[in-house]
């Protein structure tokens, strides 16, 4: 069954081609069927491949399927080949299953839209690119998928292109990720020029044998690849594009900007983990980036009034957790958190879509209220997703994955109390902002009547995702709670094990307990501020420091302002100053010279016979003179 692996990207590509070429001419139902079924088929194949892989793991824990030879120039021979090991299997399965659910949801969500088939075409292309990225066996093919998802992200953020705001958001996303992509390309050049191959496994083994730990080359390569990962995953300092990307349709936000594309950076670092182990300073940088991002995004999420923007900052924060895990060497924990995050974040976005749709495209949480009784399905699923996000102990998947990371931040030789407290602060903040949203939106007095209720196509996916958000964590139970590390064992062939043991005074159980306390503190804090004594919250917000902090956190810690003043304005100023185009001046100068000469010489065309006769005579004088002299 493993040899069917190529169907996983092939189905979405086929769906894209059909929808791109004949989509507008198909009836809506057929376009939806094509779009959803292609992903469904892909998901089915990936589940079959997964069961086969689990039942009979291939040799070396990896299966390679070469499709064809892409480029063949001398010793540069990247191929179109798929590499399946534990890491890519987990991520591919999660991506295809969640994509299928989101496609099913969007069949109903986008039903009123004009660009129905266009939407599914873009989404299919996205899934195809993402799967290519995950299954690529060489870095060039990975980069192809990388660029493909970036393109689809641009196309989908600016899906409602008639509104220029969406176009601006799409451009911003593309340009900011481009900065990261350039760094990544430089990293690929570096790797290729020094290691001679872009095949991932081959280059990693060569790097391990050729480069000593901590030398310049792996540090440079790892840092450049980190730049690419930071851009795609919206971490510091390139996180400014993700909140604005919420201008796209909600299924897009759910799929691309929550569950899949933004985790491509995590995948990249996990894939090239050998490089990071060879460059400890860069790995420390990964951890610091993750920790600082998760705290900063947490504070920003606390101030947002747009429901989707809260979830966007929440995504940035959770990916910060994954980066933190990667940075302290807890590779498996990061992928575990990716899996659970895909479930509950997609769930949260889909329910947010339901709620926004029901409130007639109202995005502000302060204009919603009391939806607990009006939309019970939405309430319970959002509650489950929110608890999973915040990490409700024992019951939710998010608890297990997040606790693993918190513990790893403490116990890893590369961790420490600073990273651990940052992770805990993140838990507190996550609880605060999540329950803030839940209490404001679902509790209190209803503000409007709910007219549009979701149909089965929108309800079933959210219920499935809610179920996964509850039980998805049970594949990795920590020693204190059952000791069932199925996930880690599965990933052992692909990723190095976590070198814990630096626990010292704290055990894993104690760390988990502290995290649980932080969760309840966040829950209680949200309850106090947003249910019981809203006046206190208002007072805090309106006070002098409160207002300043609120503005600061609302504006994403001033990054947009910084980039605008440091980068955008000088470029715009320069473009304005150089309107006359200095470089073009010599060429225009040549034209000008010939024009001037023309005007000058045309003065000799007087039209008078005597003048011409004089010219002839003068010419004769000159020639006779030359004959004289020579």
């Amino acid at each position: 069954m493993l040899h069917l692996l190529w169907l996983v990207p092939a189905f979405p590509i086929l769906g894209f081609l059909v929808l791109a070429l004949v989509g507008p001419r198909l009836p809506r139902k057929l376009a939806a069927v094509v779009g959803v079924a292609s992903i469904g088929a892909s998901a089915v194949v990936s589940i079959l491949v997964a069961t086969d892989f689990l039942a009979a793991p291939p040799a070396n824990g990896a299966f390679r399927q070469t499709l064809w030879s892409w480029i063949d120039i001398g010793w540069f021979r990247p191929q179109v080949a798929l590499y399946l090991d534990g890491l890519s299997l987990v991520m591919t399965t999660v991506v295809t299953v969640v994509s299928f659910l989101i496609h099913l949801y969007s069949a109903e969500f986008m039903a009123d839209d004009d660009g129905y088939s266009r939407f599914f075409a873009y989404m299919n292309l996205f899934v195809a690119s993402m799967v290519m990225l995950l299954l690529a066996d060489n870095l060039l093919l990975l980069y192809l998928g990388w660029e493909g998802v970036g393109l689809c992200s641009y196309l989908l953020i600016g899906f409602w292109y008639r509104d220029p705001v969406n176009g601006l958001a799409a451009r911003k996303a593309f340009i900011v990720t481009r900065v990261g992509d350039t760094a990544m390309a430089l990293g690929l050049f570096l790797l290729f020029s020094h290691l001679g191959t872009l095949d991932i496994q081959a280059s990693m083994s060569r790097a391990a044998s050729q480069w000593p730990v901590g030398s310049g080359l792996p540090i440079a390569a790892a840092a450049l690849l980190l730049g690419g990962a930071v851009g795609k995953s919206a971490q510091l300092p390139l996180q400014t594009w993700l909140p604005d990307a919420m201008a796209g349709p909600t299924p897009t936000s759910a799929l691309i900007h929550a569950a899949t594309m933004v985790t491509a950076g995590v995948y990249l670092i996990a894939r090239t983990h050998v490089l990071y182990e060879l460059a400890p300073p860069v790995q420390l940088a990964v951890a610091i980036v993750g920790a600082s991002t998760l705290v900063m995004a947490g504070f920003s999420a606390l101030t947002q009034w747009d429901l989707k923007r809260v979830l966007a900052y929440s995504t940035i924060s959770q990916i910060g957790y994954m980066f933190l895990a990667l940075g302290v060497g807890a590779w498996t924990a990061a992928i575990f958190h990716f899996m659970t995050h895909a479930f509950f974040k997609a769930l949260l976005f889909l329910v947010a879509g339901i709620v926004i749709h029901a409130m007639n495209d109202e995005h502000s949480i302060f204009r919603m209220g009391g939806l607990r009784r009006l939309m019970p399905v939405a309430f319970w699923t959002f509650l489950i997703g929110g608890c999973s996000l915040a990490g409700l102990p024992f019951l939710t998947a998010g608890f297990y994955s997040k606790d693993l990371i918190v513990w790893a931040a403490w116990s890893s030789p590369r961790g420490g109390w600073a990273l651990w407290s940052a992770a805990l602060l993140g838990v507190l903040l996550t609880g605060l902002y999540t329950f803030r949203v839940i209490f404001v939106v679902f509790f209190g007095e209803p503000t409007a009547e709910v007219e549009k209720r979701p149909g089965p196509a929108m309800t079933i996916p959210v219920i499935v995702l809610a179920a996964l958000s509850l039980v998805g964590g049970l594949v990795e139970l920590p020693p204190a709670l059952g000791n069932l590390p199925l996930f880690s064992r599965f990933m052992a062939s692909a990723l190095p094990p976590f070198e814990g043991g630096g626990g010292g005074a704290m055990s894993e159980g104690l760390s988990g307990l502290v995290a649980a306390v932080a969760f309840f503190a966040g829950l209680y804090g949200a309850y106090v501020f947003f249910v019981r004594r809203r006046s206190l919250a208002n007072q805090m917000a309106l006070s002098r420091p409160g207002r300043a902090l609120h503005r600061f956190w609302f504006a994403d810690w001033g990054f947009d302002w910084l980039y605008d003043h440091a980068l955008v304005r000088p470029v715009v100023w320069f473009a304005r100053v150089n309107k006359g185009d200095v470089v073009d001046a010599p060429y225009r100068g040549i034209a000008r010279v010939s024009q001037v000469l023309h005007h000058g010489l045309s003065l000799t065309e007087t039209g008078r016979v005597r003048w011409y006769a004089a010219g002839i005579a003068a010419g004769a004088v000159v020639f006779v003179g030359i004959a004289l002299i020579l």
Partner: protein
Amino acid sequence: MQAAFYIAGAIAVLSTLLMITRLNAVHALLYLVVSLLSVAIVFYTLGAPFVAALEVIVYAGAIMVLFVFVVMLLNLGDRATALERSWLTPGMWIGPSTLAVVLAVELAWLLGRSASGAAGETVVGPKEVALALYGPYLIGVELASMLLLGGLIAAYHLGRRAPEKAE
């Protein structure tokens, strides 16, 4: 004979000079005729009696007469003379004179440098010219006759009055 050459040459130059400075067209034409006649004498002194005769008959006798006819046709009167006076300011002469003087000097210099022989030793009479014309230069004769035909037709057409009705 040499004296005849020099005297005729001097008269030719002088009358040409006078011709180009006249205001009245007919006066200038008459001076031109004098110049042509003196050139005919020069031809004779050089031992070319045939072209001397041709010069007088054709050039001075036909072409100049044609000029005179046209000038009479145009009926240029005192107004034309006044116009000429206004056009011929002394300042006008400077440029062309310089040009022509330079040219003449250059030509004289060239002539001075190169060797020359004696001209006019023998008389080349009409017989030799005729033999040359109807011998080796036969094509030239035919071409000249076609040229004359072309000139005739062109002159007839161009000199017509425009037709009454619009075309």
